[in-house]
C-alpha cells in the first residue's frame, strides 16, 4: 500500500471535479492485497485430520475475497459507478481537495514513526500538534506550539502515572 499516497492525491482532486472519478487503482490495490494473502495461504496447512480445514482456510478466504471484490470494483468503475466523498461534521464532501493541508496533516501523522523513539513522545506530539493546527488554517504557530507543548507534557506525565509505558521524556538528554 506504499504507493497509495500519490494515487490518493490524484484521485482526490478528481473527486471534486463534476465528472465521475475512475479510481481503478483502488480495485487494483485490493486485488494486489488479495494476492499477497493468497500467496501466504499457500504456505499454510489447508487441512487437518478431522476438521478438513486448517489455519490456511481463512487466509485463503480473505485473499480470494479481496481479489474478487477488487475485480468487481474495477468492473463497476468501468461501468460508471459514482464515488462521492462522504460528508463529515466539519468537512464538505463537495469541497475541492486542499492538497497542502492534506500533506501537512499527513506529515504530522508520519512524523512519529521517525521521532517517537529517538526524540520521545512529548517532543513528537508537540510538533504534530503544530502541524495539524497549521493544516486546519491556524496561523499563530507560536500559540499552537505552547498549547501543544502543554498538552503533550501534561498527557505524558498523567499517562505515565497511569502506568502506560510512553518511554522517556526526552531521550537525547536521557531524562
Amino acid at each position: 500500500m506504499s504507493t497509495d499516497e500519490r494515487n490518493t492525491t490524484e484521485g482526490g482532486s478528481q473527486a471534486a471535479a463534476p465528472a465521475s472519478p475512475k479510481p481503478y487503482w483502488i480495485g487494483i490495490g485490493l486485488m494486489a492485497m488479495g494476492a499477497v494473502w493468497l500467496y501466504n495461504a499457500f504456505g499454510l496447512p489447508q487441512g487437518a485430520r478431522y476438521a478438513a480445514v486448517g489455519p490456511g482456510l481463512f487466509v485463503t478466504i480473505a485473499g480470494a475475497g479481496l481479489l474478487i471484490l477488487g475485480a468487481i470494483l474495477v468492473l463497476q468503475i468501468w461501468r460508471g459507478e459514482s464515488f462521492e466523498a462522504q460528508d463529515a461534521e466539519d468537512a464538505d464532501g463537495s469541497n475541492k481537495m486542499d492538497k497542502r493541508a492534506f500533506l501537512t496533516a499527513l506529515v504530522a501523522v508520519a512524523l512519529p514513526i521517525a521521532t517517537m523513539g529517538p526524540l520521545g513522545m512529548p517532543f513528537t506530539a508537540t510538533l504534530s500538534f503544530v502541524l495539524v493546527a497549521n493544516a486546519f488554517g491556524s496561523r499563530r504557530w507560536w500559540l499552537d506550539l505552547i498549547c501543544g507543548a502543554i498538552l503533550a507534557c501534561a498527557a505524558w506525565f498523567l499517562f505515565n502515572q497511569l502506568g502506560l509505558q510512553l518511554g522517556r521524556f526526552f531521550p537525547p538528554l536521557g531524562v
Partner: protein
Amino acid sequence: METFELLLHGFSVALQPTNLMWALVGSVLGTAIGILPGIGPALTIALLLPVTTALAPTSAFIMFAGILYGAMYGGSTTSILLNTPGEAGSMMTALEGNKMARAGRGAAALATAAIGSFVAGTIATLALTFAAPAVAELAFYFKPTDYFAITALAFCSVAVVMGTSRTRGFVSLFLGIAIGVIGIDTMTGQPRLTFGNMQLLRGIALTVVLVSLFAVGEILYVASRYRTTPGVMAPIKGQLWMTKQDFARSWKPWLRGTAIGFPMGALPGSGSEIPTMLSYTLERKLTKYPEEFGKGAIEGVAGPEAANNAAAAGILVPLLTLGLPTSATAAVLLAAFQNYGLQPGPFLFTSNPALIWGLIASLYVGNVMLLVLNLPLVGIWVQLLRIPRPQLYAGILVFAMIGVWGLAGSWVDLTIMLVVGLAGYVMRVYDFPIAPVLIGLILGPMAETQLRTALAAGQGNPLVLVSTPLSAIFITLAVLLLALPILLKRLRANA
C-alpha cells in the same frame, strides 16, 4: 426474583462513591463529545482504552457506559441548535429540531429530546436487565455451528446494510477479516502473514486499527476538505419548558421510539442510524399534524431521540451475553473487555457478577445524571462548540498517538497507524463504510475458531454447519440477505 437481587447488588456497586464519580466523568465526557463534532463515542472510548491499565474494570466500564449514553444526549443538542448532527444517530433530530429552534421553540425541542432520551434509556435498560440473564443462559445451548452462523449473518447484514453499495460494504468487511488473520493462529500456533516480523506475531491490535481509521482518517479527511464556514447557531429562546400540548404530543413517540430502538440496536449492523430513521418515518405517518413535519414537528424530535438512546442499550444485549459486537461502539467496548482479559459471555455473569450488574445498575444511575446534566445546563454545554477546530483536531491526533504508542512502544504500530489512517482517508473520499472493517476484524477470528471447531467435531462434514435449527435459520437468512436484492431486481426486470 434472582435478577432483582442481582440488580440490587449491582446498585450497591454502582452507588459506591468512586463508581458514582466515574459515572459522572463518563456522563460529562459523553455529553461533551456528543456535542463536539468530529468525535463519536467509539473513538472516545478507544482513546480512553489506555486507562484500562490503571482503572479497575468495574469503574472503567461504568465510565464507558456513561460515555455511550451521554453521546446520545449530547448529539441532539448540536443537531437542534446547529443543524449539524453531532452523532450519526442524531441525523433525524436535526430535521425537525433545528426548525423548532429557528421558530423560537429550541428549549422545548431540547427538553423533549432530553426527557425522551431519559424515558427510552430507562425503559431500554429495564429490558436489558431482564433479557440479558435469559440470553446468557442460552449460551450453554449454543454450539460452535450456531456461533458461526451468527457471525456469518452479522457479516452479511453489516456489509449489506452499511454503505452505499454491497460491493463497498464487503470490501470493508474483507479488509477487516484480512487484518484479523495476521498473527499467530490460536488453534495451531502457526504464524500467519507476519513476514518474519516478531511484532506482528501478536497480530494487529484493534485499538491501533480503530484509532487510525476513526481519528487519523478523519483528521486527514477533514483537513483536505475543511468546511471553513462554521454552522450558524440558533439561540435558545422562547419559553424554557414544554407546554402541556408538547407533552401530550411527545409521550407516544417516546414509547414508540423505544420499542423500535431497543430490538434494532441488538441486531447486527443496524447501529443507531436505522432505528432513528424508522422512528422518524413512523411518526410522520402517525401524526395528527402532518402539515407541521418539515417545519418543526415535536414528534419528529421525540421519536428519533428515544430510538437512538434505546438502541444504545440494545447493543449491550448481544455484547454482554454472547460477546457479539453489533456496532463500532460495541466493538470498542469488546476491546476494552479484552484489555482486561475478560470475555463477555455467560461466564461473565457467573464469574464477575459485580462487574456486569454494577455496569447495568450504573446505566440507570447514568441516565438520571444525564437528565440533570442536560436539561438545566444545556447553555453551558453549547460553549464547547466554540473550541477552535485547528486545536481540537490537533489535540485528537495527540491522544491518538498516545493510544497507539502506549500500547507497546513500537514503531511498527505507528507505521500501521499511518497506513491504516491513509486507508481511512481513502475510504471517506470514495465512500466506503468504516464500521464493517471493525466488525470483520473482531468477528473474523471468532468465526474462524467456531467454524474449525464445528467442523472438527462434525468430522469435516460441511452439513454440520446447518445441523441445528438456529444455525439453519441464520445461514438461510444470511444467504437471503445476499441473494434477495439480486432476485428482486431480476423479477422486476422480467415483469
